[in-house]
């Protein structure tokens, strides 16, 4: 009797994950296996492969100073984008949850945050160009008011511009999960802390922050994996002045060097997975989500 129920439950479980499996296996697992397999063969230089087994592609990836420079450049962007989107995202969520008294208004403001994200990423990125350029709005205003004599070059086609575009694109990915976990915090906990004489800073540090760790972790996963896997924002906003891990192997594909590109892609997949694992180690997502 008891075992029958378990079997039925197990069957229901399999049935529930079946749609996901049907999508993930052909569209994710199989292509990934293809990429990994391609990383161990040799290129004939004309877009074909020589069936063989070689570690040469990995050897060239690991022994090239370029790989390390690319990862360094990409990590820098990741850290800056993560830090600023977290700072902005956290405080926006905090304001919405704890300072806006009316829950309906809070929800309305929250939805307002998503409005800019109804337009495409690309549009939101290139719309910075007329603002930040040499003859852009900011420079014209600063030169016009004689704050500076020469337009600032550093605003556009620079690392600063790349970070600005990332933060603008990705902050929403921080706001949503952090807002979600903050909204679950029992307001009475905060009141109790205040009654017990805790300062506002202590409340954030000792109650809010620990209780929305899950939201921060989820937001961080989004931001880190998107920045690590991006090449377009870097290409456009740095004016081609900076490179990225993905941008480099995209160029390899352009000259049909599939095996080296596959090796770089495999390496990146492993590194991003490790980063995600590291982030997940800081929280028990499953426990938090079922709380």
């Amino acid at each position, binding site marked *: 009797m008891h075992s029958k129920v378990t079997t039925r439950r197990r069957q229901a479980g399999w049935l529930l994950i079946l749609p996901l499996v049907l999508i993930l296996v052909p569209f994710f697992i199989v292509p990934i296996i293809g990429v990994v397999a391609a990383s161990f063969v040799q*290129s004939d*230089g*004309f*877009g*074909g492969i020589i069936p063989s087994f070689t570690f040469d592609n990995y050897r060239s990836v690991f022994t*090239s100073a*370029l790989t390390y*420079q*690319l990862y360094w*450049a990409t990590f820098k962007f990741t850290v800056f984008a993560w830090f600023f989107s977290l700072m902005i995202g956290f405080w926006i969520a905090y304001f919405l949850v704890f300072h806006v008294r009316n829950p309906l208004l809070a929800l309305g403001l929250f939805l307002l945050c998503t409005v800019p994200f109804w337009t495409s990423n690309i549009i939101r990125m290139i719309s910075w*160009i*007329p603002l930040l*350029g*040499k*003859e*852009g709005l900011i420079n014209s205003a600063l030169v016009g008011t004689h704050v500076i004599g020469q337009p600032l*070059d550093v605003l*556009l*086609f620079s690392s600063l511009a790349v970070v600005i575009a990332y933060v603008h694109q990705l902050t929403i990915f921080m706001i949503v999960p952090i807002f979600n976990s903050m909204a679950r915090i029992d307001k009475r906990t905060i009141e109790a802390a205040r009654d017990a004489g805790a300062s506002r800073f202590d409340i954030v540090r000792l109650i809010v922050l620990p209780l929305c760790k899950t939201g921060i972790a989820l937001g961080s996963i989004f931001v880190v994996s998107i920045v690590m896997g991006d090449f377009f924002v870097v*290409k*456009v906003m740095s*004016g*081609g*002045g*900076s*490179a990225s891990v993905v*941008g*480099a192997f*995209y*160029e*390899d*594909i*352009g*000259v*049909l*060097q599939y095996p*080296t590109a596959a090796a770089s892609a495999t390496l990146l997949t492993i590194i991003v997975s490790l980063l995600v694992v590291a982030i997940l180690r800081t929280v028990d997502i499953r426990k938090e989500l079922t709380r």
Partner: protein
Amino acid sequence: MGRDTEKLGKGGAAKQHLPTRRQVLKGAAAVAGAAAGSNVIGAPVIWAQEIKDIELRHVGVSYSVVKAIGDQAAKDLGFKVTMQNVDTSAAINRFITQPNTVDIPDLEGWQAKLAAKRGVIQGINVKKIKEFDNFLPIFTKGELDGQLIPRQGISPYEAMYIDKPDATDLHEGVTEWATFLPQVYNADSIGYRPDLVDHPVTEWKDLLDPKYKGKAAILDVPAIGIMDAALCFESAGLIKYGNKGNMTKQEIDFTIEKLIELKKSGHFRATWTTFDQSVQLMAAGEVVIQSMWSPAVAAVRVKQIPCVYAPVNKKGDKEGYRGWCNGLGLMKHLNGKKLDAAYEYINWYYTGWQGAFVSRYGYYSPVPSTAKTFMTPTEWAFWYEGKPAPEEIKDPYGVPMEKVGTVRDGGSFLDRVKNISCWNTLMDEAAYMNKRWNDFKVA
């Protein structure tokens, strides 16, 4: 569609009720006053019935695979033509990895070489191309006015012939089978702001002049960006290349080290990848001199911002334009009626409508004699003869481009094309070059 095109399209477009090529050509001939109809084989009526359901997918870069041209071809030929745009690297990847999703690949010479090598295209029988004998000899024989066309990089002539329809290696010398047939080409050089650069630019080395520090840009498509850089360094007397279009590792290293040096000194404001980016950089005052394409210069001028396309005529072994050429191929899977339709389509390209259309962009047709019949004398004088425009010049969509009296930068067709010194390419050391180019990017 603009007024200009409508007027010119009268021969072709206006006769919608009789969409066979014979009629189109008759119309064109009538407009031009030339007897072009006599050597054209008419399409039987039954053929028109059978081809209705055929669809040809023409895939390639946006400046070469143009929707307006496909629409006109479909109208004239009576079957469906779908134009699909991808960037250069996505194009060659698609031809090679998904050959069955393409019917007409739009190929550059080096792509034709790769596609033949991979066996994804079939040879085009040049005997079936009615205008083949009217092609400029730049392509068919590798010469122009008895002068040999330079072979640095992969010239269209070099990539054009194979000895049998399924050959995978190129053949040196004229044969009956072509890997691809040129449809549009041009000579690239430098664009600059005449109001901000104090002298007329005629040499590539001006792009390196420290005066334009922080105001210069270069093309960021590794395979051709490195050739623009090479033209600059050769012009400045820093190096002499054996073949700019196929550098040795040492030559690549030298070129990249120089580029890194320039980048570290803050010489480049940016690098650009797309047509629009180059227009934006120039129009927004970010740069005053950069490697550029001819229609991009025109697009800046349309915004009422002065911009000149530098005539970089050859001086001994130095200078010269970087030539490029896109052409039509036939994918291997085409057969039967679809293959016949593909031949019809290719033949249509050389009947003049398309040649006139691309000429209004500042590009050229490989068969100028038919393009001329679809152009006004004003357009012909301006775009091909390098004469002052007798009337206002308009772009293919009818937007005014150049005032009366303007002379095309670089002069006549012959002046420009004869000064091509190298062609777009994919080097033997492409993998190494790419890696070094990324060193430049990340530096």
